[in-house]
């Protein structure tokens, strides 16, 4: 069950996202994460989605996506050179004796503290899924209250 990061260009119209999501639920494919936003061309959106499946399933997923009338292009980035990033907002307890350690961790992971309250810090980090997992494992023992993640976005690398 390999992870596949698939990037789609779709018509930016109401209902398109539900066509894509409906295809996954209707055919029993799974979605690990999904991220959508407009591209430079306002009539086109990019959806980045991460799914898991063997080669046959991944092939079916790509073909089925291609078959949707509103899908303009399907790229399976897996197995190609690409950059992938995800952002997380992590709200962590900021007890007095942990604060320095939190700030150090944020620093190491090149994150930012974006909100501060007497009891909590909200930390913003960006990176690959591995990097986010790593900082989470550091912060978790200090008491993570809430987390919000964007899911992965990705683009193929240009040839050097």
């Amino acid at each position, binding site marked *: 069950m390999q992870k596949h990061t698939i990037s789609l260009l779709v018509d930016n119209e109401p209902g398109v996202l*539900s066509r894509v999501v409906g295809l996954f639920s209707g055919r029993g494919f799974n979605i690990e994460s999904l991220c959508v936003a407009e591209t430079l061309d306002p009539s086109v959106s990019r959806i980045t989605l991460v799914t898991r499946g063997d080669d046959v399933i991944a092939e*079916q997923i790509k073909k089925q996506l291609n*078959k949707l*009338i509103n*899908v*303009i292009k399907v790229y399976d980035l897996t197995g190609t050179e690409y950059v992938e990033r995800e952002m997380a907002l992590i709200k962590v307890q900021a007890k007095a004796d942990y604060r320095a350690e939190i700030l150090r961790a944020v620093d190491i992971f090149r994150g930012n503290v974006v909100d501060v309250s007497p009891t909590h810090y909200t930390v913003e980090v960006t990176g690959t899924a591995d990097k986010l997992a790593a900082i989470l494992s550091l912060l978790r023992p200090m008491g993570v209250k809430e987390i919000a993640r964007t899911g992965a976005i990705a683009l193929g690398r240009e040839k050097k």
Partner: protein
Amino acid sequence: MAVLKEEGVDTIFGFPGGVVIDIFDELGRTDIQHVLVRHEQGAAHAADGYARAKGSVGVCLVTTGPGATNTVSGLASAYMDSIPVVVLTGQVPTALIGNDAFQEVDIVGITRPCTKHNYLVKRTDDLARVLKEAFHIARSGRPGPVLVDLPKDVTQGKARYKPLPEPRMPSYNPTYNPNIKQLRRAIDLIKEAERPVVFSGGGVILSEASKELTEFARKLHAPVTASLMGLGSFPGSDPLWLGMPGMHGTYRANMAIGACDLLIGIGVRFDDRVTGTVETFAPNAKIIHIDIDPTSISKNIPVTIPIVGDCKIALKGLNRLLREESVKIDKKSRKLWFDQIEKWKSTQPLRYEQGDVIKPQYVIEKLYELTKGKAIITTEVGQNQMWAAQYYHFDRPNCFITSGGLGCMGFGLPAAIGAQVACPDKLVVDVAGDGSIQMNIQELATAVQYRLPVKVVILNNRYLGMVRQWQELFYEKRYTATDLEQGPDFAKLAEAYGAVGLKATKPQEVVSVLKQGLESPGPAMMDFWVAREECVYPMVPAGASITEMLLA
């Protein structure tokens, strides 16, 4: 309306309601014929039957809410069988959408997974373009149903119609032309094959490739089988014909697939009713698969040579290559293969014994003889459908109209009405079960009103026969919820609708009742009381290989 005319629409099957009065009002002022059905499911199936018999897009117009939801089975059936249908539904005014207005349903949401595409039109100015696109999508590529939802204010608004060019859609480009390298590779396999089988499907009928298929099979001197949807794509009376494969396929077709060294699937999708367990399907064969829909290829069965493209163009290409490379198949080299097939055929033919009680197979055989194989046959679902497929032989495409993929009971009568509208000069017969016919029997009124002389042949076993058959074979004859002992008197019912009603209870009456019914000028319903516990054989039990058939 201008777009509809431009798209060649001459008939609409529909049922009105408040929000579509404007459309009907406009329709009434054109020369497009409107056929008023008695249930919107009937309208959708009729449009499907029309599309198949005529080979063009069928159109259906219904109101919002319940009118729209009633078409869902029809859409799902057309979707599974890739039939070009455009369904127009009324919708509450745009300002009310989302407010749970009276008779509001999100029909675009409901039908997303059972249409090829669907639209909600929000502005009158978009109407013409969307309708053009809807017809284009429905008929091109792998055809399928398209739904267009029309809010009342959009259809009340006025817009000047400027003729539009054929739609160009950047995200929709079906592949028609197959890759020539793949065709060449296919030819290489074909040259090597000793025991080839050609397996044709609905795609051959949809792309009107029967002639090319027949030429191809004859050139190869290869036996041909066809899925339920493909019946008629190759002449059923040809010596190369094997019969249908799969769950209720012929012994020789299933055995031939089991033993072949090359299977050439054309416009098929290797449905589970055809393949049985996929691991043991065509275990010795390399597989060439031609289909216009890439998702059909290697979905269920891994193939050796995938060819994405239109069946007709691909077959033409293959025939041309065979000619160019002067591939000559020596008929003698196939002798062993055909001897083997003949042996399968003679040891295990399709068979039944006609005794004191009418056998359903006998009725179909007589129907075939009396109509000289020239009728358009529609079917309901269940045993009746399988017997029609087995015992009526189809020599021409677009003559067997059945709900194959969805298996939707209640399909046959409205589909027959649609086919009759499309082909007024042809004899159209719905082969029915006593269960299914009751799901849309009200359409008899439609047939009578529009003087559509469709004939209904009911194989009346007073059971939901196909389910009963499973109960007999796999549930120790516990006939739970399948006994229809208390049926109506169909002959009287037909008369009540204003049609001819006939009934036969003895084998000697079969031919005369058929003759009387078929020769009557208007719609007729013939009720044949058949052996109650007759089963369809051969049968491949669920989870078995297709070569492991129950034979009687």
